[in-house]
């Protein structure tokens, strides 16, 4: 909201610098976003009168003017076509400075000297969007005579500041000059001065123009009308136009400008209908019929429904209530009589209508936020007053005011003790009362408490705590002496789950893996890209009703697509090696469509490409599990997971439960992600990992007795798994095997086709005694025999 400080000054004395004003208003709750200076740095531009205007003999499109600037008359050549002799115009003299660093020099147009320039509003620094349409294509012509030679800054008010505020949604009353004047008065403890609103010369009777008003009481709280006749539609006086432009509103014509002026002043949107164009003499505020149509003043035909409120005459709709008027009854240059509407529409209805029609207007956004219905009368009367004062027309006597559910002032009980208890202050009751009264709240002391009467325009004050906030903000939050919390000292805690997660992050980071984070929603197409079967549970995803496009439309049930996406992005950016992990949620519905909150399951995904292979990612998982104290899991070949390579993938089983999959990504999937490299991935159930983790560590005595190491080299079928061979070795351990290490795998050469040679080094150790060769030999022999039996293994020398 733009607040011109000069305008504000009409309702409250302003002696303060605008910066001081802005800072203090910010601290009392009206957040200043910027301070805009009206001074545009214009120098040597004065009011001049065109006393002679003739065509340039040698240039079709130029005119030579003689301009009286008070002390002298100067000759200026101009291309403007909107001028006539007698016009008062802004004259930039030789040596003048205009906005955007334009300097005026003496020039010569085809043999004629020109001692300056006549200016348009744009040349004087006004923005296109607020320059009146009738002023847009030419030199600005003043509305009346001003002393010649006066600098234009003075006439146009190009001094002082405009303050831009961010008004919070609970304070729609502050979206007006009067509202901000109230805030200013309260903040600086000043008196408000309101204009006296009165209409003096009323003629005829409104009954001669309007018979009756019918009103839908559900969607309209009040409908207040007046009639103005003998209107001469023309430009508004300059002071009024300047006010509007300073507040960011484009002047249109006197009647419309006055309604806009009052809207800015009091915050009440108003509308003027051309009364002569109304069919019949009844106004009906009603729900639209389904499929009913209206052409609005922006020349667009709009289709309505019964959820929209319209203003109708006896034939059809003439306005969409609180949103926009109809084109047929719009005020035009020919208008002589208007019906002035000052109404209060249901905020929800206006919001839904504006949204449904995709037609947000100044009026609709004000109605949406809420307006005091008692304002209707004040605003309408103020319009009438200004109509009279500016000679725009004659006000017809009488009003029609339909208003049944009258909004009345309410009283709230305030306990001063509660104020200090919540704010942590030591204010006296008198101080509190002072702050409340500065805000024009009436107070009366009732024993230990204060009864506070709330003006009807303060829609935000309904509870005691609301008043505490008012006292707090006027006292100034910045003045509250800060105090540490008191009470029992407690230590902050983290859940075990988060501790495990932190540990996992540390371990993964230590292994050189980068952490990533990706969106919780993905594209449903991702499931095709990773080749998930049509009937897979992974496809039981939760859909958003209103996604930002298909790419973000379903809640992920796997972290894999995001990981593949980012690996692909890195790959295609030329990053040669990528090793990343993400810990994030997947969303598992209990049923579809969901009726209750889904399960959010934490997963760990690790993805990589580059100079790495399956065993790198497996090692990562192994080290992670070791560090998290997870034991007793095994890797089982997985041939049927369509996302992965059928011969390079394993499920990780723990206590009979699958807690994750690791492997090389299937070449088809890699291709779907535009990569030409081997990609490896691990996808693990982190909730399960947390459950099975054990971060406690018990000391185990260091070995005192020497170990015995025996190597064993065997030839087995190529398909035999090393893990299965190792299992046999451990099976016969009798608690004496400390370590089994694979140190060689060999195929080809002397090894027969379809066979492989595998060599292990087994370390035996006892913690109680020095092992004897004989007892190790017995175990070793058992292992060899079992390997021969189970895997047809042949011992090599």
């Amino acid at each position: 909201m733009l607040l011109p400080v000069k305008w504000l000054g009409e309702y409250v004395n302003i002696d303060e610098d605008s910066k001081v004003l802005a800072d203090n208003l910010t601290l009392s709750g009206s957040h200043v976003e910027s301070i805009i200076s009206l001074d545009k740095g214009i120098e040597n531009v004065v009011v001049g009168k065109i006393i002679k205007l003739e065509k340039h003999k040698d240039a079709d499109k130029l005119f030579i003017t003689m301009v009286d600037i008070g002390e002298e008359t100067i000759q200026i050549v101009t291309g403007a076509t909107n001028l006539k002799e007698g016009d008062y115009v802004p004259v930039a003299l030789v040596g003048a400075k205009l906005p955007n660093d334009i300097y005026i020099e003496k020039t010569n147009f085809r043999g004629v000297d020109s001692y300056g320039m006549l200016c348009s509003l744009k040349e004087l620094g006004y923005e296109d969007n607020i320059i009146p349409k009738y002023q847009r294509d030419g030199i600005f012509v003043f509305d009346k005579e001003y002393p010649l030679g006066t600098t234009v800054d003075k006439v146009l008010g190009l001094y002082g500041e405009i303050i831009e505020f961010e008004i919070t949604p609970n304070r729609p009353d502050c979206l007006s000059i009067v509202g901000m004047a109230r805030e200013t008065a309260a903040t600086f403890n000043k008196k408000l001065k309101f204009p006296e609103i009165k209409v003096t010369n009323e003629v005829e009777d409104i009954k001669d123009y309007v018979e009756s008003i019918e009103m839908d009481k559900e969607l309209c709280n009040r409908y207040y009308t007046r009639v103005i006749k003998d209107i001469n539609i023309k430009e508004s006086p300059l002071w009024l136009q300047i006010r509007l432009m300073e507040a960011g509103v484009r002047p249109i014509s006197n009647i419309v400008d006055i309604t806009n002026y009052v809207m800015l002043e009091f915050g009440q949107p108003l509308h003027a209908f051309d009364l002569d164009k109304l069919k019949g003499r009844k106004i009906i505020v009603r729900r639209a019929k389904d499929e009913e149509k209206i052409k609005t003043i922006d020349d667009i035909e709009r289709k309505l429904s019964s959820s929209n409120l319209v203003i109708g005459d006896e034939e059809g709709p003439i306005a969409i209530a609180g949103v926009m008027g109809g084109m047929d009854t719009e005020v035009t240059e020919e208008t002589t009589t208007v019906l002035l509407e000052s109404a209060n529409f249901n905020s929800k209805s206006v919001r839904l209508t504006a949204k449904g029609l995709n037609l947000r207007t100044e009026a609709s956004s004000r109605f949406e936020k809420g307006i005091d219905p008692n304002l209707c009368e004040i605003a309408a009367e103020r319009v009438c007053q200004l109509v009279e004062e500016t000679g725009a027309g004659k006000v017809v006597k009488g009003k029609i005011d339909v208003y049944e559910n009258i909004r009345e002032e309410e009283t709230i009980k305030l306990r001063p003790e509660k104020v200090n208890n919540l704010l942590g202050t030591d204010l006296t009751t008198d101080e509190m009362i002072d702050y409340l009264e500065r805000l024009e709240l009436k107070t009366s002391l009732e024993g230990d408490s204060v009864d506070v009467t709330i003006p009807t325009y303060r829609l935000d004050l309904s509870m005691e705590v609301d008043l505490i906030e008012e006292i707090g903000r006027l006292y100034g939050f910045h003045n509250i002496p800060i105090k540490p919390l008191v009470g029992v000292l407690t230590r902050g805690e983290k859940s075990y789950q988060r501790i495990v997660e932190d540990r996992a992050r540390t371990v993964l980071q230590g292994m050189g893996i980068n952490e990533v984070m990706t969106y919780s929603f993905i594209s449903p197409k991702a499931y095709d890209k990773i080749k998930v079967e049509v009937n897979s549970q992974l496809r039981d995803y939760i859909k958003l009703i209103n996604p930002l496009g298909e790419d973000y439309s379903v809640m992920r049930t796997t972290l894999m697509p995001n990981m593949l996406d980012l690996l692909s992005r890195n790959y295609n950016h030329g990053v040669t090696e990528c090793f990343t992990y993400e810990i994030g949620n997947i969303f598992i519905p209990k049923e579809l469509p969901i009726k209750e909150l889904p399960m959010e399951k934490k997963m760990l995904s690790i993805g990589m490409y580059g100079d790495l292979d399956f065993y790198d990612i497996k090692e990562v998982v192994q080290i992670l599990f070791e560090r998290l104290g997870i034991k007793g899991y095994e890797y089982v070949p997985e041939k049927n997971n369509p996302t992965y390579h059928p011969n390079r993938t394993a499920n990780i089983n723990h206590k009979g439960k699958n807690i994750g999959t690791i492997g090389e990504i299937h070449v088809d999937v890699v291709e779907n992600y535009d990569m030409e490299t081997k990609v490896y991935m691990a996808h693990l159930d982190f909730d399960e990992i947390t459950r099975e983790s054990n971060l406690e560590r018990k000391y185990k005595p260091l070995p005192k007795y020497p170990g015995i190491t025996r190597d064993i080299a065997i030839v087995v079928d190529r398909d035999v798994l090393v893990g299965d061979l190792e299992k046999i070795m451990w099976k016969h351990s009798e608690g004496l095997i400390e370590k089994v290490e694979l140190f060689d795998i060999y195929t080809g050469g002397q090894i027969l086709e379809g066979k492989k040679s595998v060599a292990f080094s087994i370390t035996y150790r006892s913690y109680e005694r020095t092992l004897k060769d004989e007892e190790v030999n017995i175990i070793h022999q058992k292992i060899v025999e079992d390997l021969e039996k189970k895997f047809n293994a042949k011992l090599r020398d």
Partner: protein
Amino acid sequence: MMKDKLKKIKEEAISNINSLDSLDNLERIRVKYVGKKGELTSVLRGMGKLSKEERPIVGQLANDIRQEIEEELSIAKDKLKEKIKEEKIEKEKIDITITKKTRKLGHRHPLLATIEELENLFISMGFSVIDGPEIETVEYNFDALNSPENHPSRDLSDTFYITEDILLRTHTSPVQIRAMKQMKPPIKIVSAGRTFRFDDVDDTHSPMFHQLEGLVIDENVTMANLMHTIDVFIKELFGKDMETRFRPHHFPFTEPSAEVDVSCFECKGKGCPICNGTGWSMELLGCGMVHPKVLENCGIDSEKYSGFAFGMGIDRITMVKHGIDNIRLLFENDNRFLEQF
């Protein structure tokens, strides 16, 4: 004669020792002169031919010479060893400007690192860390937080919905409701996490972003306590010289409500172009005293208990901290970006 012979052996031996160049040769010389079958021994073997008087003298001389040669050998051996060591060290010279790149430490995502830093800071201030779900009910996300029924933030154009009653949480504030419903005062928690709003991706917006929420509920908790907590937190996070400014603001779930500005990160409050000359970095966090309706919605007696809540955008804090100018970078996960932190 024998004496001459011995002297000659000595001279020869010492001369040989002086010109030694390897440990092998040293051994050979030792064997040759003082070994069991060496020259000195063979001379001594001829002692029988000497007179009784001469024998001890020559014997003495021979022993002296042996000793002398052995000493010389020992010195020479040390020298040689030293020389060989020096040569080896010289040969082992490397180019220390060459870099090996086999070991690597992974990088924490800057945003998650910020969350961890903030959480740890609050833990040290006595707050417990809790989590809440990303998918929430309309009840917890809006209704229980006193959000007006017609509030635009509830629109489909602002919030992602799954059903009429279930949505992607638009802030971390529903965790407050969960905490108050599940725990009994005193409550002192923070909760960080993902939040979602219907915003198209651009330099400063993302449909997914992050917040950290804090809540304290106890008897006699005041606005002055809230301000102290925030002040301590800001000073711990950004430095002791940072000031905070509490501006009245409006949130449906707190009353009074305030926004907190912090000294401009660039000029530390002096005023510069980045802060439009105000000296403040705007709207770092929002806070306020928990609205009595919210307390009552969670079954907490608002006459007995009061409390405060605060929330902040972590993406923005992360970006300010690291000078990141585009929020997209946080979610693109380009290795070249991640490895800067």
